[in-house]
């Protein structure tokens, strides 16, 4: 039975630069890179060196702890460079693309007739496995376990988030195969979260649809899991982005690992916000070429403005990127900024006159708007946190590194992205997502 969940808590931040529903062609990327830093709880061990020739789907590196989890090349070409950071940390494996577009063949297969173990092996060897994220901890899923449920969100409620119905409009076959495959993995129908009843996603088989109405973060899988099947200690739930479900389906339908995806180019500093077809690892430059307004210093973000990762024009599309946001940097002073009325400033509180114009869209920059302080205002996080969890108490337990308390207060149910709005609204400018990540890492280290 599908459930209908109406969420009141949350916040929609209305920004300028929403992507128009048109697919534009981008310049073909000549170089691409895979970034081991995209993957959480993975220690990479390289299997290629500079000048190796690779096909799409060839292994680039594997996880040291679990060598079955491999990461494969998104293009065919030559390994051009292996970039390392401090203490020789592996940052990027840069590949010069060739024109041959050669694919490694993993073999077509009918998902419904395969055994679970065969499906897992195929996902692992093709390098698609890391698209499956496990909760607790929000890390790459452990192939050795069977989750109690798999959750997929059919919509992105984050600021300027991509419209997956537009993105996946002509990939219904791949999606169906993807859902079939995921059902095999957990033995139950896949939980799909939707925001309206006439969605193109509502006619698939092997899915359990639940509806979530309300502001962001209604589209976050964390919120959806919490309301449908909350995670208790010792349980595991997997989440997969819906575009990756299509990628999984494509693997079984064609036998190829195809890292192609459509991402939304958004933000107030983009001339023509729209969708582009590209692939994992493509260079950011090839996507933004000529499309930046260039009126100010820009910040280029892989992902949305709340949870994304900062990059620059020399960066590369990440494994989990479905959106690029470009907003102005806010490195400027503001004279008596805390006192002036501030008609153009957005706040979840009503301390700025902008609350009188709720429909207005803003071009927000990256200014911190204040300085870091201790927790002072109470009740602020709760307004944007639609879960039965006390966010501030959980955060304090994390800061105190009290694992028992964290367990009691619900750490297994959360991921940093669920706290993104708390971080946004925080008067004291507390680095909430970082604290949550550190808390999760600590619990993971101490309990496993």
């Amino acid at each position, binding site marked *: 039975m599908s459930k209908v969940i109406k969420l009141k808590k949350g916040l929609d931040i209305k920004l300028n630069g929403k992507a128009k529903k048109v697919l534009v062609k981008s310049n073909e990327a000549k170089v691409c890179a895979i970034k081991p830093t995209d993957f959480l709880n993975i220690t990479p061990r390289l299997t290629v060196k500079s000048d190796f020739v690779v096909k799409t789907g060839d292994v680039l590196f594997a996880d040291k702890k679990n060598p079955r989890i491999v990461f494969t090349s998104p293009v065919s070409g030559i390994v051009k460079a292996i970039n390392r950071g401090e203490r020789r940390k592996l940052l990027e494996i840069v590949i010069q693309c060739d024109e041959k577009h050669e694919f490694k063949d993993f073999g077509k297969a009918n998902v419904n007739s395969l055994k679970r173990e065969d499906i897992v092996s195929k996902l692992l060897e093709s390098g698609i496995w890391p698209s499956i994220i496990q909760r607790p901890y929000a890390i790459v899923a452990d192939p050795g376990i069977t989750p109690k449920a798999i959750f997929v969100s059919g919509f992105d409620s984050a600021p300027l988030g991509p419209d997956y119905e537009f993105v996946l409009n002509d990939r219904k076959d791949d999606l169906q195969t993807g859902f079939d495959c995921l059902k095999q993995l957990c033995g139950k129908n896949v939980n799909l979260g939707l925001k309206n009843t006439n969605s193109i996603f509502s006619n698939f088989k092997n899915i359990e649809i639940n509806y979530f109405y309300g502001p962001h973060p209604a589209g976050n899988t964390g919120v959806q899991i919490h309301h449908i099947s909350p995670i208790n200690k010792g349980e595991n739930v997997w989440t997969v982005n819906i575009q990756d479900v299509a990628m999984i389906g494509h693997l079984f339908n064609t036998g190829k690992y195809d890292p192609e995806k459509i991402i939304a180019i958004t933000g107030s500093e983009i001339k023509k916000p729209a969708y582009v077809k590209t692939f994992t690892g493509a260079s950011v430059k090839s996507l933004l070429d000529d499309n930046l307004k260039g009126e100010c210093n820009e910040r280029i973000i892989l992902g949305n403005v709340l949870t994304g990762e900062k990059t620059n024009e020399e960066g590369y599309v990440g494994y989990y990127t479905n959106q690029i946001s470009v907003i102005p940097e806010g490195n400027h002073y503001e004279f008596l900024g805390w006192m002036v009325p501030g008609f153009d400033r957005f706040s979840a509180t009503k301390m700025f006159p902008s609350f009188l114009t709720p429909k207005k869209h803003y071009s927000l920059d990256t200014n911190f708007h204040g300085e870091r302080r201790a927790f002072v205002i109470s009740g602020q996080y709760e307004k944007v946190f639609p879960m039965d969890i006390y966010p501030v108490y959980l955060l304090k337990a994390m800061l105190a590194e009290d694992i028992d308390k964290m367990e*009691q207060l619900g750490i297994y149910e959360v991921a940093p992205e669920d706290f993104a709005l708390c971080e*946004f609204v925080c008067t004291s400018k507390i680095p909430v997502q970082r604290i949550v990540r550190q808390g999760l890492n600590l619990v993971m280290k101490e309990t496993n």
Partner: protein
Amino acid sequence: MNLLRNFLDKQKPKFEKGGKMYKLHSVFTGFESFLFVPDKTTDSGAHIRDAVDLKRTMIVVVLALMPALLFGMYNIGYQHFGGATEGFWTIFLYGFLKVLPLIIVSYVVGLGIEFAAAQIRGHEINEGFLVTGMLIPMIIPIEAPLWMVAVATAFAVIIGKEIFGGTGMNIWNPALLARAFFFFSYPSQMSGDAVWIADKTDVISGATPLANAAQGFLDKIPDTATMFWGFIPGSVGETSTFCILIGAIILLCSGVGNLRVMFSVFLGGFLMACLLHGLLPETNSYSHISALQHLVMGGFAFGAVFMATDPVSSAQTNVGKIIYGFLIGVMAILIRVLNPGYPEGMMLAILLMNTFAPLIDWFVVQSNIRRRMNRIKINVNN
């Protein structure tokens, strides 16, 4: 503005690590961030941030205090001249000049300690005192000697706040702690009939309505309307319930003040007063005071709107806030009516509930934990 900015940019290196004036860096950043919102950009997590900061929040509270403060100044003059015998400006100016020294002393002493504490600990100057410094002069009698105001303020900032780690870490409302310190250390300057009216020259009694009620001088209690508008003796800011309600509206509309706390304080006080009004024997003078009168007398409204709602010292959870507020209302009236020692119960009620707020929250959070643990049990049983 550019001129000022250039000047600050030029001075900045001196206060940075290794500079000559490094020791004063938190004073410098304090002033700099007062003049200019810093150019700092987001470095981790969310790339955009809400425009609100603690300065903005505090300034909204100060703004909400203004109606009560300005009326308080007028009322000081009004009480001194024994009515509107002089022109408006004469009366107001008299009160203004009486109140101003209190405000200056409170801010200078409090901010001085804040600055020094920030300097010693090497952290930034917190904005919390912007409100505390305004609250202190508003809750003490006009005739309070300035040196006592200074000592009480110092006590509140050091013992009430800094030893716990500064704004956000304190257990009690610092301004109320200043008043409590005053009340118990210098009772003769804090109560009685002589302190509420500035330079009392004539023989009219200067007792507050509450003192009159406690002593049974029921005929001396002004009618409810007068008490609501505020033309009665009392602390600077507490007399006019009307002006306090304007402040409450500002706090609630801007979302700074918490409706749950405010409402439940009034509710708790009202119900308790109704109960006592019905239960007390005729011989007790308070049995003649109605519940409505209770709410407009003394510091009840001021405490409910500006003191109980302090986000740091009140309960943190939504359910906790309702319990916390309700008990403040109940306790305030209970102390007021049944304890002959203190004519006013609001201050002690709030401080008492500040102490118990973490306990209330503990029970609320514990019930959340129990829900989560029960979920596991149900799963295991299935």
